């Protein structure tokens, strides 16, 4: 029964083309790890900071926005079948790994380029990376039962623990990247035993407690509410969308299995963003090459902002309600006002980074001026371009936030197309200030062209409706 159940769960959650792409990326990653020489990727000692930082990031992400890859049909039909709890738990765990943990294993190639050591050490490290993927999977399951503060505490603890090897501590799971493979492996195994035991226990009782878990995860009422009385159409829409941040990685290859929406006041959001900007400034100062070329910290930070900022916007569509929004206003006006709000939100989120880069530019850090142009001109266009792409190519409406709204499909990767554009723009912008300005002008022109098209927005509404949006 077990293999058939696993096949059923995988088939109901992942489209075949997506599984094909995942296998391709995995093989590519492995080949890259073995055949690309370290000198071909000029990161020097920064790679250690990079891999530890990215490991911490993934663990924090999965702990904060993870969930259980469960569908409404599982609750209605699968749980009523005479299946053993153990079979269900193991099957769910494997599909959960494909949805969340595998994203870390896909980093395999990037790590192996830089690993210097014996064959045995390399083999041990490969196993460790799979184990970190399993840990990531377990954390996404375990955190599902926790309240937001508990999640933040666990995520923060894991993040700090992951970063400790940078201060010379050798008994952390990331110390495998600082030459302490044996100590790191022991920690990874211990953490896996603890968190995977908790995860499998939770999965084995999920059918009994799913409704209860989802109801206790957050309070039933908002503590502070927004007032819309007396506001114009534009002011109402802007106020709503300024206070809503949604994030998801439903397209898999490094994402969450359920959709998360948080109502965060902009000024609250600016506090952690400012802290991250200061950390960025510190690394930009340390890794500032003497030859005048942009430092690896500046380039990578801009690239990652180019990857993550556009990911905040596609899900705006998922939470819209066509029957309310587009039966009240014309599509173009409604989307224009949402875009206003999201551009303001993005620009505000970029302000701490712009401020830090101004200081860096005054000090004379290479690439800081280019970064200011990228952050001030290119990235603020990302809400519009990302929204347009997701509406046109991969819309999926979220009705119930606790379950998977649809299977993971290759089409959802279309959401990543703008990410490619913005990442490429980050790299191009680093070559010269003129190129940065050209990129800025190009993206603003594209954004305005999209915004102006009346019929374009109407067509998106028709497409959303045909795709089942209500």
């Amino acid at each position: 029964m077990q293999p058939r159940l696993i096949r059923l769960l995988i088939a109901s959650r992942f489209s075949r083309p997506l599984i094909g792409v995942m296998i391709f990326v995995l093989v590519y990653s492995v080949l890259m790890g073995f055949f690309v020489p370290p000198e071909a990727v000029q990161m020097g000692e920064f790679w250690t900071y990079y891999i530890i930082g990215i490991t911490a990031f993934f663990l924090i992400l999965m702990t904060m926005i993870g969930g259980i890859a469960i569908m409404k049909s599982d609750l209605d039909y699968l749980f009523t079948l005479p299946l053993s709890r153990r079979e269900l738990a193991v099957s769910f765990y494997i599909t959960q790994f494909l949805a969340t943990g595998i994203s870390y294993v896909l980093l395999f190639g990037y790590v192996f380029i830089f690993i210097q050591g014996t064959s045995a050490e390399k083999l041990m490290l490969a196993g460790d990376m799979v184990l970190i993927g399993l840990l990531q999977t377990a954390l996404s399951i375990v955190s599902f039962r926790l309240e937001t503060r508990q999640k933040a505490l666990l995520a923060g603890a894991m993040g700090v623990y992951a970063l400790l090897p940078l201060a010379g501590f050798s008994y952390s799971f990331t110390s495998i990247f600082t030459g302490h493979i044996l100590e790191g492996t022991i920690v990874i195994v211990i953490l896996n035993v603890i968190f995977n035991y908790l995860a499998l226990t939770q999965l084995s009782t999920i059918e009994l407690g799913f409704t209860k878990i989802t109801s206790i995860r957050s309070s039933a009422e908002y503590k502070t509410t927004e007032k819309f009385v007396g506001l114009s159409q534009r002011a109402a829409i802007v106020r709503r969308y300024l206070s809503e941040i949604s994030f998801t990685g439903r397209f898999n290859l490094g994402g969450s299995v359920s959709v998360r929406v948080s109502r965060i006041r902009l000024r609250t959001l600016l506090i952690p963003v400012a802290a991250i900007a200061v950390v960025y400034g510190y690394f930009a100062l340390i890794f500032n090459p003497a030859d005048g070329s942009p430092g690896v910290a500046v380039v990578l930070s801009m690239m990652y902002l180019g990857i993550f900022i556009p990911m905040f916007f596609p899900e705006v569509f998922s939470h819209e309600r066509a029957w309310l929004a587009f039966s009240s206003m014309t599509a173009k006006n409604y989307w224009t006002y949402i875009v206003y709000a999201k551009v303001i939100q993005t620009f505000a989120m970029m302000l701490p980074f712009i401020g830090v880069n101004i200081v860096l530019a005054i000090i004379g850090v290479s690439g800081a001026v280019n970064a200011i142009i990228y952050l001030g001109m290119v990235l603020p266009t990302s809400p519009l371009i990302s929204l347009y792409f997701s509406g046109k190519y991969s819309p999926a409406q979220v009705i119930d936030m606790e379950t998977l709204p649809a299977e993971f499909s290759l089409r959802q990767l279309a959401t990543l197309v703008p990410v490619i554009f913005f990442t490429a723009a980050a790299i191009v912008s680093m070559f010269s200030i003129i190129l940065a300005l050209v990129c800025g002008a190009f993206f603003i022109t594209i954004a305005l062209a999209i915004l102006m098209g009346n019929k374009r927005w109407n067509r998106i509404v028709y497409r959303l409706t045909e795709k089942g949006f209500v």
Partner: protein
Amino acid sequence: MVLVEEETLSGTHTNCISVNDVTKSYGKNPALSGLSFSIPCGEKYSLIGPNGAGKSTTLKLLVGLLVPDRGSVSIDGIDPTTKRAKKLIGYLPEDASPYNTLSVRENLEYIGAIREVQNLRERVDQLIYEMGLSEYEKSKVSKLSRGNRQKLAVALSVIHEPDILLLDEPLNYLDIPTQEKTISIFDRLNATVLVSTHIMSIAERLTHGAIVISRGRTIWDGTMEQLKQLGDPTEAIEKIVMRLMTGAAPTH
């Protein structure tokens, strides 16, 4: 029979709802195949048909969320995608889901603001009271029961006191007292009403006319009384409708 009439009731148009020879497909799957009907202003009609007949698609076309592949639809003589038409229409889809990320009051205030409702605070207070949602004002919609979500959806569809109501299974999930309140709220609006349903008892309670469609075409229209007269006096109206849909001969 409901006919396209040129006399005026609402000023310049007899018919507040018109569907003329409309064809609509989803990819290769036809949903509507030359559907035509019209509803005079102020009248209340049910759109009756089996699953997959094209009822919901018809309402989405009338509210401007879809456009026909061929043919035309109009609301009080104007294109439903225009701002003017949107002000006239109140729409409630089947299994309506309000904004999950807003509270009950926020949903009503938000939609009220973008619909530019006058005296919005009073209107929101009134609807919250009438629909029995007072204790859930601050509740997250994602935490509401299906019944309370439907109450909110009903309130959202009428917040701007529309002249034309397009309702898709509006009484789903509602308990009997709330059903009665909802019907009285709809009646108070004196709107032109088109209710999509496949439950005849709901059709009879909400409307006095019926348009029966099957496979995307109109197969019969008229008053409920005329519909009943198609069968024996003792015959259940459901059986009469079933015969219409399957093309069987009337009993008399």
